[in-house]
């Protein structure tokens, strides 16, 4: 019964608030009528009786509200009331509402995007069973995971801590299913790859350890779901078909499930093949102990084994290997890391960058809240008369504050919704984006429930944050004072407080907001400057008019004895294209895919243990024309000739850093000898200038160039320098190159790109950093404009009368402007200075990502000052115009 009644009243309160309201009104009015009847009977006139009855009844609205509160369900009902009231209020000032919603939409949208990326890359676990126990074996001394295949076998068989260790590497092949062969990326995995990961096939079967019976014994291929869908149109009959991988037949045995993309984030392989067939697509011997070509070794740590125990176990296997194979093994210590971002190699910078970005977007939200807090405080001041009236009529302060908060939260929810919608669109685009077309790289950053929850939470939190700003103001409102002196007087006094000597909360908010925006503008400028400068730096080669074509001859089935002849024919084929000035041939290019390297010993080292090595140097195998074609300057000596082949002594051109590191100077290096890991003595015949090889931010690296005829390579890069000015259309060059190479061998997949495009992968990180910081900077700038504009416009509108009097008393334009806008501009100056200082401190961090991002750059400093000045001018322009157009006559006539 009791429950029924309260349920009923709750129901009525929620769904029929007007009915409840009407009943209550009727009852209270009935009371007053009855009282009036009594008074009338006592001889008072009806109208006087009714008046007295109303007075005796007391605060009608107050008692009605209290009655509502007593009925229960009132929370929701009052909420509905508040929401309706707030909506009405907001509709009355659409400009304010739209500005506030958009401000928040930007801020919350930015946070949702950054959080979603962070969620997808860092927080979301890998899509395999039990991702929490899957670890990559990382070298103890550096963030890398490569191993040799024999070492992997030893680690796998001698450890006691893992449920099966997996080895895998990336394989690029010429994939031929009957049409023209295409270049395709896959993963080669050890036989236990799928079983140890616990993945089940979508179709057919996977390969297993039992399929491995020695070298090239398992010619099976598992297709990724997307390759099966896109290349084979989802044909279930594909199982059992034979496809050619680099001219070797492989049987399709299965299709991987749609959600499995390998274990490295970003890298989406098209297929999976057994590692025992490595020789067929990579062309080299997989069993050499010194060749660390296995990209990653990983596995599930056994239940009950801690990470520390597993690491110790691996280290003991490592020290066994060091002792047993001292010639090839060194530094065999390990640490464990999650495999999805290649351990700490990508994990650390990515985590740091995203954390930084999250911090900046948090600052944006904070700035937006400060901005809206100021606006709300101004609005509350404008409404002090209304607030005072409501207080005088018996409304409780709590109720009025509730109303204000409802307004704030409504705005923040609307802003959050709009921002989230925008961010979903942006994230969809980002997920579909393929940043580096040469590699199968995707960022799957679509938002999930967690992202929506965070956005909602941020919206609510910021609503309460900026809604809380005017609280003190409302609590302090003295209704009698306001009603007595009138709104103008009240606000006049208040504004006097703000623009007098004292620093108020609103001033502080504006300064904080401008400072935050200053940080954002500064760091985005530093990043942009850094990127521009790094593009204009000296790379040790020329970028203009250069086209690259790369392929791997093993993809088309060339054996090592056929390779030099084929490479010679390729060079000759493209050399005769009109407009091509010179053609270089190499196995890789600087700032390209990252080729081979070797330890280097000085000539007098006899014990060639890895620990005795003088340095490790990158190797580029090049043709005689390569250095000239790529625009690399020789500092001393000569480049190679056609006679530096297998029949003549080994020679090398080294770079300046190599010369200094091994020989002490360029002059001493000339004619000197050094040894590489197989003990071969090599003579230096030339020294080339230093350049950038792996990344733009790297320290100078030692590099050696070998004649490609002395150390052949199936990976083939052709570097074509076009003539400047006359002859040849650069647009047609790629097509012409493709046609010429196709006429040599139609089954050879070739990738053609400009030298600029080849830099995409090294420029990816700084570009992403610069773009995201740039966006943040623009958002910060927009926020500071709206903030200053709001402040200035408000101060001018509230002081129009005073300004009018000043003008009437003969004040000059300059004085009027100073009176109206001096304070906001002073706050702007303070905020900008603070922001600039903080920004310069913050951008020290940036220097790690963006090459040459130094905050101590006069251009950046000037740029920031100029930008903030422009923002200030822009934001105060309209209020200033309004202050100057004050007509004292009209103003003084008002009131």
């Amino acid at each position, binding site marked *: 019964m009791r429950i029924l009644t309260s349920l009923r009243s709750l129901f009525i309160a929620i769904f029929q608030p007007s009915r409840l309201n009407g009943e209550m009104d009727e009852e*209270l009015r*009935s009371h007053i009528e009855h009282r009036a009847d009594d008074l009338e009977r006592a001889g008072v006139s009806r109208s006087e009786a009714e008046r007295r009855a109303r007075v005796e009844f007391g605060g009608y609205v107050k008692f009605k509200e209290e009655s509502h509160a*007593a009925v229960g369900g009132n929370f929701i009902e009052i909420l509905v009331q508040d929401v309706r009231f707030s909506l009405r209020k907001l509709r009355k000032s659409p400009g304010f509402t739209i500005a506030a919603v958009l401000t928040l939409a930007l801020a919350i949208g930015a946070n949702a995007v950054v959080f979603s990326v962070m969620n997808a890359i860092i927080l979301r676990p890998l899509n395999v069973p039990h991702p929490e126990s899957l670890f990559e074996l990382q070298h103890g001394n550096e963030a890398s995971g490569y191993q040799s295949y024999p070492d992997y076998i030893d680690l796998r068989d001698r450890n006691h801590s893992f449920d099966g260790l997996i080895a895998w590497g990336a394989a690029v092949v010429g994939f031929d299913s009957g049409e023209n062969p295409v270049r395709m990326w896959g993963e080669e995995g050890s036989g236990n790859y799928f079983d140890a990961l616990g993945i089940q096939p979508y179709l057919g079967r996977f390969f297993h350890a039992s399929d491995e019976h020695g070298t090239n014994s398992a010619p099976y291929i598992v297709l990724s779901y997307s390759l099966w869908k896109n290349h084979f149109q989802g044909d279930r009959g594909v199982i059992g078909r034979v496809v050619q991988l680099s001219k070797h037949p492989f049987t399709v045995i299965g299709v991987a499930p749609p959600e499995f993309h390998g274990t490295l984030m970003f890298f989406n392989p098209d297929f999976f093949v057994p590692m025992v067939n490595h020789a067929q697509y990579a062309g080299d011997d997989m069993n050499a102990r010194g060749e660390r070509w296995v990209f990653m070794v990983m596995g599930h740590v056994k239940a009950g084994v801690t990470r520390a125990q597993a690491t110790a176990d691996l280290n003991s296997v490592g020290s066994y290997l060091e002792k047993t194979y001292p010639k090839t093994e060194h530094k065999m210590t390990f640490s464990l890391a999650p495999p999805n971002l290649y351990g700490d190699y990508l994990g650390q910078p990515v985590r740091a960058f995203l954390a930084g970005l999250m911090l900046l977007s948090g600052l944006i939200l904070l700035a937006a809240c400060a901005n809206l807090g100021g606006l709300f405080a101004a609005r509350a001041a404008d409404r002090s008369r209304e607030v005072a009236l409501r207080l005088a009529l018996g409304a409780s302060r709590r109720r009025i504050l509730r109303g204000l908060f409802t307004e704030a939260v409504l705005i923040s929810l609307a802003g959050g919704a709009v921002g989230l919608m925008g961010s979903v669109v942006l994230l969809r685009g980002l997920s579909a984006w393929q940043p580096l077309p040469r590699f199968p790289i995707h960022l799957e950053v679509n938002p999930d429930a967690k992202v929506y929850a965070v956005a909602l939470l941020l919206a609510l939190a910021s609503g309460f944050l900026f809604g809380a700003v005017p609280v003190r103001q409302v609590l302090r409102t003295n209704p009698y004072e306001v009603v007595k002196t009138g709104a103008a007087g009240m606000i006049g006094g208040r504004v006097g407080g703000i623009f007098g000597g004292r620093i108020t909360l609103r001033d502080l908010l504006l300064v904080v907001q401008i400072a935050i925006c200053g940080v954002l503008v500064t760091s985005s400028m530093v990043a942009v400057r850094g990127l521009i400068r790094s593009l204009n730096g000296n790379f040790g080669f020329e970028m203009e008019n250069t086209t690259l074509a790369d392929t791997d001859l093993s993809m088309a089935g060339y054996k090592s004895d056929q390779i030099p002849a084929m490479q010679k024919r390729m060079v000759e084929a493209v050399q005769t294209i009109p407009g091509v000035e010179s053609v270089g041939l190499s196995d890789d290019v600087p700032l390209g895919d990252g080729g081979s390297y070797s330890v280097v010993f000085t000539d007098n080292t006899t014990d060639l243990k890895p620990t005795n090595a003088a340095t490790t140097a990158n190797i580029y195998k090049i043709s005689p024309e390569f250095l000239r074609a790529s625009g690399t300057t020789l500092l001393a000596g000569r480049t190679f000739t056609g006679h530096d082949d297998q029949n003549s002594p080994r020679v090398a051109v080294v770079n300046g850093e190599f010369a200094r590191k091994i020989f002490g100077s360029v002059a001493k290096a000339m004619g000197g000898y050094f040894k590489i890991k197989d003990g071969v003595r090599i003579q230096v015949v030339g020294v080339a200038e230093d350049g950038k090889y792996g990344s733009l931010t790297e320290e100078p690296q030692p590099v050696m160039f070998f004649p490609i005829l002395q150390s052949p390579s199936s990976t083939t890069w052709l570097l074509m320098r076009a003539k400047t000015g006359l002859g040849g259309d650069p647009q047609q060059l790629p097509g012409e190159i493709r046609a010429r190479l196709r006429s040599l061998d139609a089954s050879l997949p070739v990738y053609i790109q400009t030298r600029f495009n080849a830099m995409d992968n090294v420029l990816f990180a700084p570009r992403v950093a610069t773009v995201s910081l740039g966006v943040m900077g623009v958002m910060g700038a927009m926020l500071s404009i709206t903030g200053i504009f709001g402040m200035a416009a408000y101060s001018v509108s509230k002081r129009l009368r005073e300004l009018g009097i000043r003008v009437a008393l003969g004040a000059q334009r300059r004085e009027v402007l100073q009176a109206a806008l001096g304070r906001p501009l002073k706050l702007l100056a303070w905020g900008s200075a603070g922001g600039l200082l903080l920004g310069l401190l913050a951008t020290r961090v940036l220097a790690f990502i963006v090459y040459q991002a130094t905050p101590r750059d006069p251009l950046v400093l000037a740029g920031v000052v100029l930008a903030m000045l422009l923002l200030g001018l822009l934001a105060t322009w309209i209020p200033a115009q309004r202050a100057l157009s004050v007509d004292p006559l009209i103003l003084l006539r008002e009131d």
Partner: protein
Amino acid sequence: MTDQAQLLPGTLDLLILKAVSLGPLHGYGVLLRIGQISGSALLIEQGALYPALFRLVKQGLLKASWGISENNRRAKFYELTALGRKRLRVETEDWNRIAAVMATVLSTQAEEI
């Protein structure tokens, strides 16, 4: 007016229950009944009655229904529920006990200790 006593907090509910226990009443009637039985010795702000009435209905101590008053006007009539009757009995006992104790305490003279 001046010699009317302020209500102790919490006593209004008890007064209402008592007044209604003597027969169904509308809001204004409750007020008149309390005035009548207390000899107008208690000061009750008229409007303050209603939050208390709604609260008692919600607690299930009173039930309300619309009817026609003696003045021929529509009015909402309140009467005790079984629960209300029980509560009135309990609260009355409590009140009497406390009143007796308070009276004893307050009338204690120095020499009696």
